[in-house]
């Protein structure tokens, strides 16, 4: 009736007000959704809280991850600012501000300790960052971590090695991280020309920034993609927590007259509100959790909480993209269901066959991006690598639903009843579990690929010290100088023989040149000492032996020039003739590996240079943990420049071991997050089925049957995901290995560990949903009036 009237009697309303009217109505609808999210009763609040916490956890992990590069930057700019390594290249004249420095870094129970001895040339010496004035003689400046260590019982042995008492602490500017052990002390008798002593006129790196090893670069890239993709997927899944209930609520809204568009806008309002709450939660968790990173140390790398600053562009991206993702997710999800006034109808997706080709497109494209990089051991385009790895991993998530449809669709209803129910359930509505498992599969595929890179790294970076436990495990090297308190082998032997040392053999080491470019190390000592290095059938003072080596075969009878070719050493050119009677000798394995050169008994030796170098082979009592520390203390007492090498039976680069541990920890956290979304899905499904469950109780169903059915229902998608992940992970790993030129090598232990973690998650999810199942398997569900 109003239509003809408005056409005749009243002027048509202007376009503007209609428009703003609609906008206002839309805004009101979105606002209604937002209110529903916040005031929708206990259930609604629970759902909003669940989403907010889920999104928040994911966001906190994302914030932490995107802060890592900035954190590393801050750290390396601080370490660069205190760098004093000049490699003897600068000739600096002494002045009011110059200082002499000596690196006396050591290690204590496997932790490295950075130490410097300093002597100012004038009254106004340059100071390292974090230091206001040089320590008084007899005292030292230490990092807070070192101060605490020295004060503790654990630091007792280290105290003896320190050049003084604690006189102050070093500020944050001079430390790489809160757990770093650093000290500075002043020593008056430091002089230029003493071994390793340098003169500097300022701190700060002079050498250009070294680019990261491509292998390490690849590792870092893959770690980021592998751990962040599932977290992002988790965030997406978290925005759909409680979706079923939400759909029912929308149905109720439709019943009172909302149309399709209105329900979409209401849903959008709800999604954006809970995602925004999630962002807030994530921000709070990040800020509150940040100081706690100082308690963790990975690969001797500790981090200041304040160094964790997400870069602004990424932060802005996160803040914008999380609500948008939530919005998109909820709208996409709404397209799959028809919200009718009287309920929710799920669109039968089973009818529309999932297509394979476009799902294959992404992993193939990823492979195509990575393939050209193979063999380029050197530099490669990082973005190409990131894109390639991401596409392959995304492929895992995209292929999984297809594989799932194919395989689960084929499974018959045979076998046990619990199995039949699980299979049928998955066939009818496996969508949500596939989505959650997609994240597991991505994490697993990435972890497997990474694990392959790591075992390659292990092979490259772990050297077996083919050590004979009966032989020396340690050796020390010292060049005699004014700083040394022992100047001959006897005195060295005596000083090195500390508790836990079972024997010490000290040689004088010299070097000799012959011919155009011939070079030989000379090992000088008595017969007993020389037997430490080689199998000698008979030996008397005055004998000379030449190790079996093609380069040295011509040596007996030749005249050699003593000393290194270093022009700096002011040493008269001493010549010495290797006796023609020198006999061949076979090297014994030592801590050095096999030595080579010429063995000379003291009687036949050329005269020693003014500042000779002594090498001592030290046997330590096996099993005495403190023996190496005492040896280090003795060495420091002999000379701050004394070099000590202590062999362990296997030399593993501890960085890799801990990165590897970190990777598995990260994978476990990621899988736990994914497990959380699986759990939420299962619980929702259970609640939705309370009537069916109650009817099953009436029919006398056992709890165990239903429990097993939940287990199968969780296990089947996870197993499928893992199989797919293993296949693509191995492929990706092979490509990555080829990129860094390492031969293919499938790592079974990695797959086993990842599968183990995933199995744990499945068990956890099942166990956690059992109480709810027991609770719902009660006759209450039979009430419907």
């Amino acid at each position, binding site marked *: 009736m109003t239509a003809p009237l408005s056409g005749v009697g009243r002027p048509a309303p202007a376009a503007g007000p209609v428009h703003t009217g609609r906008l206002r109505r839309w805004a009101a609808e979105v606002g209604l959704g937002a209110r529903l999210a916040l005031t929708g009763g206990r259930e609604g609040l629970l759902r909003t809280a669940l989403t907010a916490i889920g999104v928040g956890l994911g966001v906190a992990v994302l914030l932490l991850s995107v802060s890592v590069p900035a954190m590393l930057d801050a750290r390396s700019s601080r370490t660069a600012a205190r760098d004093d390594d000049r490699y003897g290249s600068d000739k600096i004249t002494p002045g009011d501000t110059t200082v002499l420095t000596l690196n006396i870094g050591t290690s204590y129970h496997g932790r490295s300790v950075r130490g410097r001895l300093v002597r100012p040339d004038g009254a106004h010496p340059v100071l390292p960052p974090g230091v206001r004035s040089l320590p008084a003689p007899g005292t030292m400046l230490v990092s807070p971590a070192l101060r605490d260590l020295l004060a503790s019982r654990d630091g007792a042995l280290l105290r003896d090695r320190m050049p003084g008492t604690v006189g102050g602490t070093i500020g944050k500017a001079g430390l790489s991280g809160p757990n770093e052990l650093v000290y500075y002390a002043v020593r008056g008798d430091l002089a230029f020309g003493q071994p390793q002593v340098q003169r500097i006129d300022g701190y700060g790196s002079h050498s250009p920034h070294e680019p990261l090893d491509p292998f390490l670069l690849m590792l870092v890239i893959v770690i980021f993609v592998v751990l962040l993709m599932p977290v992002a997927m988790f965030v997406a899944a978290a925005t759909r927590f409680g979706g079923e209930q939400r759909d029912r609520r929308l149905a109720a809204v439709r019943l009172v007259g909302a149309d399709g568009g209105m329900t979409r806008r209401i849903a959008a309002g709800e999604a954006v509100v809970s995602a925004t709450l999630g962002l807030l939660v994530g921000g709070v968790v990040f800020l509150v959790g940040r100081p706690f990173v100082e308690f963790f140390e990975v690969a001797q790398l500790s981090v200041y909480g304040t160094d964790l600053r997400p870069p602004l562009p990424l932060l802005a991206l996160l803040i914008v993209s999380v609500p948008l993702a939530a919005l998109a997710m909820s709208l996409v999800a709404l397209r799959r269901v028809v919200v009718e006034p009287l309920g929710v109808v799920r669109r039968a997706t089973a009818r529309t066959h999932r297509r394979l080709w476009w799902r294959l497109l992404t992993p193939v494209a990823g492979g195509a991006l990575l393939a050209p990089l193979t063999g380029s051991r050197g530099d490669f385009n990082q973005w190409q690598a990131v894109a390639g790895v991401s596409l392959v991993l995304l492929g895992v998530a995209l292929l999984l639903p297809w594989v799932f449809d194919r395989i689960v669709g084929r499974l018959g209803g*045979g076998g046990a009843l619990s199995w039949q129910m699980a299979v*049928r359930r998955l066939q009818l509505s496996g969508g949500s579990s596939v989505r959650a498992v997609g994240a597991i599969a991505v994490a697993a595929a990435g972890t497997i690929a990474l694990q392959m890179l790591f075992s390659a790294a292990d092979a490259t970076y772990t050297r077996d010290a083919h050590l004979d436990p009966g032989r020396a495990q340690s050796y020390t090297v010292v060049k005699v100088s004014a700083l040394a308190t022992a100047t001959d082998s006897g005195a060295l032997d005596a000083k090195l023989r500390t508790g836990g040392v079972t024997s010490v053999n000290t040689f004088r080491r010299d070097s000799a040149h012959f011919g155009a470019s011939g070079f030989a190390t000379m090992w000088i000592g008595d017969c007993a000492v020389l037997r430490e290095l080689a199998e000698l059938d008979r030996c008397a003072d005055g004998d000379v032996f030449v190790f079996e080596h093609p380069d040295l075969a011509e040596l007996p009878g030749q005249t050699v020039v003593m000393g290194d070719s270093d022009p700096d050493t002011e040493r008269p050119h001493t010549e010495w003739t290797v006796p023609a009677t020198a006999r061949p000798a076979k090297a014994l394995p030592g801590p050095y590996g096999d030595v080579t050169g010429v063995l000379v008994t003291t009687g036949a030796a050329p005269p020693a240079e003014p500042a000779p170098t002594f090498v001592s082979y030290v046997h330590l009592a096996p099993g005495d943990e403190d023996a190496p520390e005492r040896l280090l203390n003795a060495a420091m007492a002999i000379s701050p420049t004394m070099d000590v090498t202590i062999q362990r039976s296997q030399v593993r680069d501890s960085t890799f071991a801990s990165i590897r541990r970190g990777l598995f920890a990260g994978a476990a956290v990621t899988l736990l997050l994914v497990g959380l979304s699986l759990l939420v899905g299962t619980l929702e499904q259970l609640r939705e089925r309370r*009537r069916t469950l109650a009817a099953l109780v*009436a*029919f006398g169903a056992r709890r165990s049957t239903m429990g097993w059915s939940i287990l199968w229902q969780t296990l089947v998608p996870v197993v499928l995901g893992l199989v797919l992940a293993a296949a693509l992970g191995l492929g990706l790993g092979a490509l990555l290995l080829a990129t860094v030129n390492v031969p293919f090598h499938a790592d079974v232990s990695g797959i086993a560990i990842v599968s183990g973690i995933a199995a744990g998650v499945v068990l956890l999810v099942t166990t956690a949903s059992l109480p709810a199942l027991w609770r719902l398997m009660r*006759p209450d569900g*039979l009430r419907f009036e």
Partner: protein
Amino acid sequence: MMLSAVELTKSFGSTQALSGASMSIAAGEIVAVMGPSGSGKSTLLHCLAGIIRPDAGQVLYRDQELSAMSDGQRSALRRGEFGFVFQFGQLVPELTCLENVALPLRLDGHRRKDAQRRAAEWLDRLEITDVAGKRPGEVSGGQGQRVAVARALVTGARVVFADEPTGALDSLNGERVMRLFTDAARTSGAAVVLVTHEARVAAYADREIVVRDGKALDLARHA
């Protein structure tokens, strides 16, 4: 008497659902339980079937006392001797109709082949062979209830408990379900406890019991 309830009381919180209800049913007998909604019909049925325990009183099935049994024993009894039909069928949505009918047999430990063969026979008896491969969501309400009836009878149950089995159906479909249901129950000699508030549905029974305020009255005996 095959199954009897003696002086049952049951309350949920402050709601007294049953207050001294007694009734009994002979083998092969069909008894309608009528009464206004909220009067305690379903509660009585749940007690009789051993799904919930009454606060006081006894339920005797073939001289065994149900409330003295453990949960496991009662479940086993329900699996083997009882069958159920509910208002909305309560079919398991992900299983096909045939699998739904075979479900109680499988719960009772029968092999799948055997269970499905017997289920197919029952679908045939209830004139719904064509829905065997469909899921409950794909069949009409009347067909679904007939699947539920087949499911209740497939184990050779001695007692079938039906709670408003036609409550969600129109008259025509309700009549049809009731005719097939009572025919099938009589042929297989099962007793039926039929909870309903519709007189026309109750008229399919042999006698009726009226529940009022938690008490069961046998009006015919009065008369």
